């Protein structure tokens, strides 16, 4: 049970959503955008997040779009992870998103919510980072499309009234060879000890990781070293560990040392999957 009162709004258009935000903010109603609700509800229950009003964006048709434009696969932010698991247009996304939480939760968790959430893993962002996807953002000055790397650095970096409406991914990326794996402490359903996703484009491997550090990331420095074919794989992996963008997590799931060990193993698995026996 949530111990505080809040107001509920369900706008029908992008502009209405943003207007609600400003109106509620001005009235001191501490608004938050609301999508699947799995995180806001469970955290509000424990007062880990407190808000005065929620703006439920699921009433806006733009957030439900799923399909192709000439160039892109467009995924609305209200699409559930379960739906993405079953629509296999972007297999890397289907598999990565399909391992978040459990099925009952994935029925509710939306792609937008997972990526914009407070829980640090945000695993569904990894495929978009790898694909150099673009996002449609709604805000006070209307909507705009920007590369995801412009607005995702550790977490979503948007103005407080802005939110993600759609994810746009170039069709040519969808069918590239990929690798994705989630390593857990022990259980089949758990937060990641680490989740690693990779694609191979023009003989160049791109890698993104969640659960290893306190935020998901794709790192140019690590990709550079991993693609340095003049070095043996073992050495590339070892150097990649030295170039992590932040301290390795050390928590109840795993120690930092063990995470490093698993990361190295997982990189080797990735090489085997994407490069086979090639040197």
């Amino acid at each position, binding site marked *: 049970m949530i*111990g505080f009162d809040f107001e509920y709004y369900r706008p029908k258009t992008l502009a209405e959503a943003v207007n609600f935000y400003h109106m509620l903010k001005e009235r001191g109603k501490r608004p938050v955008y609301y999508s699947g609700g799995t995180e806001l509800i469970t955290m509000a229950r424990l007062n880990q997040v407190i808000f005065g009003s929620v703006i439920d964006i699921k009433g806006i048709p733009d957030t439900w779009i799923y399909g192709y434009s000439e160039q892109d696969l467009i995924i609305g932010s209200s699409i559930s992870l379960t739906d993405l698991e079953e629509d296999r247009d972007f297999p890397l996304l289907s598999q990565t998103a399909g391992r978040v939480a459990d099925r009952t939760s994935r029925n509710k968790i939306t792609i937008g919510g997972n990526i914009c959430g407070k829980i640090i893993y945000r695993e569904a962002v990894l495929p978009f980072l790898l694909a150099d996807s673009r996002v449609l953002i709604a805000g006070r000055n209307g909507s705009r499309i920007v590369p995801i790397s412009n607005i995702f650095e550790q977490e979503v970096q948007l103005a407080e009234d802005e939110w993600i409406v759609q994810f746009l991914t170039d069709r040519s990326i969808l069918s590239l060879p990929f690798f994705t794996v989630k390593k857990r402490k*022990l*259980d*089949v359903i758990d937060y990641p000890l680490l989740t690693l996703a990779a694609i191979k484009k023009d003989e160049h491997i791109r890698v993104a990781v969640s659960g290893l550090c306190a935020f998901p990331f794709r790192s140019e420095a690590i990709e550079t070293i991993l693609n340095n074919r003049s070095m043996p794989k073992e050495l590339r992996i070892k150097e990649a560990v030295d170039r992590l963008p932040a301290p390795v997590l050390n928590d*109840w799931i795993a120690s930092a*040392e063990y995470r490093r*060990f698993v990361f190295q193993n997982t990189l080797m698995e990735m090489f085997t999957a994407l490069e086979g026996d090639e040197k």
Partner: protein
Amino acid sequence: MYNIGRSMIRKDAIEKVTGTAKYTADLITADSLHAKLVTSPFAHALVKKIDISAASRITGVQAILTGKEAHTLTGEQIKDRPILAVDRVRYNGEPVAVVIADTLAIAKRAADLIKVSYTPLPVVHSPSQAYQEDAPLVHENLGQYEKIADVYPIPGTNICNVTKIRKGNMEQGWNASAVTAETKISFPPSDHCAIETRSVSAEVLPDGHIIIYSSSQVPFTIKKLFNNIFGIDQGRMTVHTPLVGGAYGGKSAVQLEFIAYLASRAVGGQKVQLTNSREEDFITSPVHIGLDAWVKLGADKNGILQAAEMIFLFDGGAYSDKAVDMSRAAATNCTGPYHIDNVRCDSLCLYTNHPYATSFRGFSHPELTLAIERTLEVLAEKLAMDPVELRGKNAIRPGNTSPTQVVLNESKIGNTRKCIERVAELIDWDEGDRIEVSPHVIRAKGISCFWKNSNIDTNAGSGAILTFNADGTVNLNCGVIEIGTGSRSVLAQIAAERLKIDAQQVFIKMDIDTSVTPEHWKTVASRGLWMAGRAVLAACDDAVCQLKDTASQALRVPREDLDISGGYVFVKNEPKRRLAFKELAYGYVYPNGNAVGGQVIGRGYYTLTGMTFLDPETGKGVPGPDWTVGAQAVEVEWNACDFTYRILRAATVIDAGTIINPELARGQVRGGMHMGLSFASREGFVFDKNGVVLNNQFRTYKVLRYGENPHYTVDFVVTPSRETAYGLRGIGEHAVIGMPAALANSLSRAAGVPLNQLPLTPELIWRAKSGDQV
């Protein structure tokens, strides 16, 4: 036979599968007020100030209680626990205040507004630390607490109970040992994880009568404790227990009942409902005990055990509750089911700043068994002896004595050896206990034996009342709680068998009302069918006697010439001369209208006999009537590259005596195995450096899910007990007991490194393999 050995569908099945079954929290009434706890965010701290002013101003708040109003000390063995914390909190999650309000939402909102200021104190993090002389004291006034006679705390320390076992002569034992093995094991406290969180309601009627509803294994104890603590006449109190949604020992502690009662009193007796959130159920209410243990075993060159010495340091947490009993129970069975002439055991229960412990399925036996069985593995290795052979050679038998020097017979001890032989067959032990499937994949097996008797009150007992409906069907009334085991249904089967009618003709309600239900001491210790089965038989015999009395008058034959079958009393020599139960159960009416006899009410009881307290210096004594024994095995597939593993299969062979309901019995055993594997592989609280629990939710505290389980094989050995109904034995807990050890043994064998801690995560194996040098 009609009913014994038949897998009848349990009588609570339909309401449970249709979702109509009612549990305590479902019984909310329109006049119920709601209580919400405020709990401590610190593991050990002084409570400087509790500011309830903002909370009190919320409309709908009826009352707020703090330790000032609820400082009475409680505890079954040692009265060390205030109902709400006074001046000091001793564990993360301890109740500090309770809000009573019109709705749960209001109560929660007000609880959030109560401001408590704390001054943190040094934290005792483990029983080993608590045992050190310079450890901070969790209870400075231990010497002043009221306690029962057979518990032995040491004031000025954190030791709240000591049990000693002194059997034989240790010097002789070690001299006779060609080989010795030592092991240290440890694991943290964990939780029961019943699906139903603990829930109570309390109401004080205008005439002073107290009505409690509680999801409890011990409604009769609640009554006695209220009498003991608040001086309430037991007749002025009724405890109702409807279906209980899983208990596993965790609902044998009395805690929320006291809070709810004081809450109701604070609002003029109105009914107050108090149900744990999952987070509270994890840590505020009592937990599964932790343990640090050291064991040394000695054997001669043939592998015959000569000596055993052990120290158990149980993590009782902040308050003693049942943990003191558990530490004693561990001592009484400290060797596992092996014959050893020379035994020395010191079993200590320690106070720490962890959530406090209470009974957990197996009652300290899964815990001690890990220590013993891991040491046996080391011993087998040193002896270069097959672990199955070592166990078989030393398995305890009739004529041997237990650690508390009970002389055993077949009825008391069953047949451990047969269980070992059968489980070795089931797990294909002979094909090899360590097989390299591929360069990096290893399949390995591990085995463990177990035994357990009960360690309950020496005069514990059970009662039963049997009445008839006018159509000749039967109502059985007894005090065993339906905690999910199906025991009440099996008791109906036992009654039907004795009355020689179909079990469908015996009705048994699932809820308990202590004002009219005959007492069953507590629904714990696998003593439900054991004790109540005997009471039910006695009640049936009493009823049959009355039926025959009436029939002998109606049929004009001596009572001895009558027998019963299929709902009739008949003349043995002329079976066609017979009267139906329905013609007798309310007296027989002659054709002219005259009546003889009257309403048949069968009554029966059973009380344990021959139990004694333990000698405080040697532990000599009789803690329970018999042991259920068995052997278990696990097969794992372990990956040497990444240290992950899968549990492929698990097998249990248990000497269950006569099995009344085979499907329910197998279900109990499978459930026990599942729980044991879950506990051993992934459960356990994670504490931060301040003693705060980091995983008090199912998000972070993982249990083995259905579907992730290995294949379970269950088989039985049948050595009937000579003391119980139809020769049954208690099996409610036992399949948990050997699972942690069997899993640890299989993984240790797979990885080639001793694994002596729980939970057995891949990281733990990786650490052990890396020699902890990382």
